[in-house]
C-alpha cells in the first residue's frame, strides 16, 4: 500500500483518508444495523440512505489505500483507524441520533476545509443533509416528551467522552463544531455534559465494540479465502 500525495486543506493538513474512510465504513455499518428495527417506515428509508452515503464515501476513500475489500474484511481491529465515537453501539434511537449529530457536525467541518479533495467536495453536500437530519431529530427528541428528553440526556452523557478525539488531528475544527453542536443542544433544551475524554482509535486502540462489529462484518468473507463475490 502506498500513500498517495494528497492536497492540503485550509488548516494545512491533508485529509487523513484512511482514518476518515474507516470512520465512514464503521458508521455506515452501525446505521445498517438499524434496518428492519427503525421506529417508522420513513426512518427505515432515511437510515438506509445515510448508511449508503457513508458506504459510498468509505469505498472511495479506502480505495486510495488498496483494495477496498481487503481493507474492510482482512484487517484486524488494531489496524482500523476510525475514531471511537463511530464504533459505539446503536443503543436506542436517541444514542444513534446523538452519535450522528456529534460525528457529522465534525465531518461537515472537515470536508468543508478540503475543497481540493474530490470525496470531501462531493461528500460535504451529503453530510450537510446528515447533519441536518440529526439536528432535526435532536430537536424533536430534546423537546418532545419527558422520556425522549431523558433518553437524549443519557445518550449525550454516554457519547460525549468520545468527542475530544475528533479534533486531535485538526484542533481548528473544534470552534465551528462547538458552535453548531452547542447551538443545537441549547435549542433542544439539552445540556452539554461534563465528562472525561477517551481517545485511541486513530492509533488502533479501540473499545471492545469494534472487534464485535468486525467479527460479524468479516465472518462470511473470511470463511471463503480468495473467493469472488
Amino acid at each position, binding site marked *: 500500500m502506498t500513500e498517495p500525495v494528497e492536497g492540503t486543506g485550509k488548516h494545512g493538513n491533508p485529509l487523513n483518508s484512511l482514518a476518515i474512510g474507516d470512520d465512514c*465504513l464503521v458508521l455506515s*455499518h452501525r446505521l*445498517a*444495523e438499524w*434496518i*428492519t*428495527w*427503525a*421506529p*417508522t*417506515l*420513513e*426512518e*427505515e*428509508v432515511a437510515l*438506509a*440512505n445515510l*448508511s*449508503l452515503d457513508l*458506504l*459510498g464515501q*468509505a*469505498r472511495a476513500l479506502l480505495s486510495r489505500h488498496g483494495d*477496498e*475489500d481487503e481493507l*474492510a*474484511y482482512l484487517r484486524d481491529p488494531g489496524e482500523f483507524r476510525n475514531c471511537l465515537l463511530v464504533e459505539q453501539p446503536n443503543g*436506542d*434511537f436517541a444514542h444513534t441520533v446523538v452519535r450522528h449529530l456529534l460525528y457529522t457536525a465534525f465531518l461537515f467541518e472537515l470536508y468543508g476545509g478540503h475543497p481540493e479533495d474530490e470525496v470531501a467536495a462531493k461528500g460535504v453536500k451529503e453530510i450537510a443533509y446528515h447533519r441536518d437530519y440529526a439536528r*432535526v431529530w435532536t*430537536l*424533536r*427528541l430534546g*423537546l*418532545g*416528551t419527558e*422520556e*425522549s428528553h431523558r*433518553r437524549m440526556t443519557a445518550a449525550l452523557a454516554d457519547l460525549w467522552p468520545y468527542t475530544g478525539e475528533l479534533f486531535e488531528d485538526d484542533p481548528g475544527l473544534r470552534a465551528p463544531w462547538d458552535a453548531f453542536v452547542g447551538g443545537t443542544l441549547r435549542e433542544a433544551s439539552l445540556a452539554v455534559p461534563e465528562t472525561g475524554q477517551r481517545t485511541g482509535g486513530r492509533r488502533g486502540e479501540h473499545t471492545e465494540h469494534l472487534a464485535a462489529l468486525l467479527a*460479524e*462484518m468479516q*465472518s*462470511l*468473507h473470511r470463511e*471463503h479465502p*480468495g*473467493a*469472488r*463475490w
Partner: protein
Amino acid sequence: MVTTFEELIARDERIEPRDEMPEGYRKTLIRQIAQHAHSEIIGMQPEGSWITRAPSLKRKAILLAKVQDEAGHGLYLYGAAETLGVSREELLDALHEGRQRYSSIFNYPTPTWADVGAIGWLVDGAAIVNQVPLCRCSYGPYARAMVRICKEESFHQRQGFELLYTLAHGTPEQRRMAQEAVDRWYWPSLMMFGPPDAESTHSARSMAWKIKRHSNDELRQRFVDMIVPQAEVLGLTLPDPDLRWNPERGHYDYGPIDWEEFKRVLAGDGPCNAERMAHRRKAHEDGAWVREAAEAYASKAAGKGGRAAA
C-alpha cells in the same frame, strides 16, 4: 353525466378514490394492498439480516439499496391503501395483531448468503410475474404504485440472478451454497401464486372487477416458463424431476406442489412465522417513544404559531 362503477369497469377505465365503488370492491382492495404492503416490510427481514455480513462492499451497497427499496414500496402501498379510507396505523395494528396477512414466502429462513440471491431471482421473479398485470388493475392509485414497484423489482431480480451466477461460477463451496438455496426457494416460490384455480376463494370476483387479470395457475405457468431457461444459464438445477418441455402445450410441465405445506405455513406453522412477527412487533414497540416524541414536538411547534415541525 354520472358514470357508474360498472360502466367504468366495463370500459376498462380506472376507478379513482372519489369515485363511487361497491363496499366489497373497497374491502377487497384494502385487504390486497395491505397484504402487499405488509409483505414488503416483513420481506425486509430475511434479506436484511445479511446486510451486516455481506461479503463485499459492493454487495453490501446493493443489498442495502434493495432493502431500502422494499421500505419505499411499503410506503407507496400504505399510501395507496390510505386513499381507500384506512390509515397506516390501523393497517399496522392489523398486521401486529394477526388480523391481516403478509406473503407466506417470508416465513422461510435465509441460512446462507446464497439465499439472498435465490430470493432476488425466484421470489422477486415471481413477484414481478404476479405484479406486472397489477399495473393495469382497475384501481388507479394501486395500479400507479405498481408501475413504480415493478421497475425496481425487475432490477432486484437481475441483481439476484447475477449474485447467484457469481456463486455458481465460483469455488465449489460457493456453487454448493447456490444450489442449496435454489433447492430451498424453488417450491415456495411456485406457491407464491396462491392455490390452484379450482380452490382459489377470491379469484373470480377479483377478475370480474379487473383487480386481477390472470388466474393463479396461468401466472404460475408463466413463471416456470421464465425461470427454466434462466436456471440453465446459471448452471443450477431446479429441484423438480417432472420438469420438462411439453411441445403440445408449448409450456414446461412441472410436478405436483405440496399444498399441505402451503396451508401449514399460511396457518402460521412455517419455519419463521413466529420470529418474523416477534421482530416486527418489537421494532414497533421499541419505536413507540420516538413516534410519541415526534408527535408531541410537532403539536408544540404548531401551537407556537406554526413554526414548522421541520
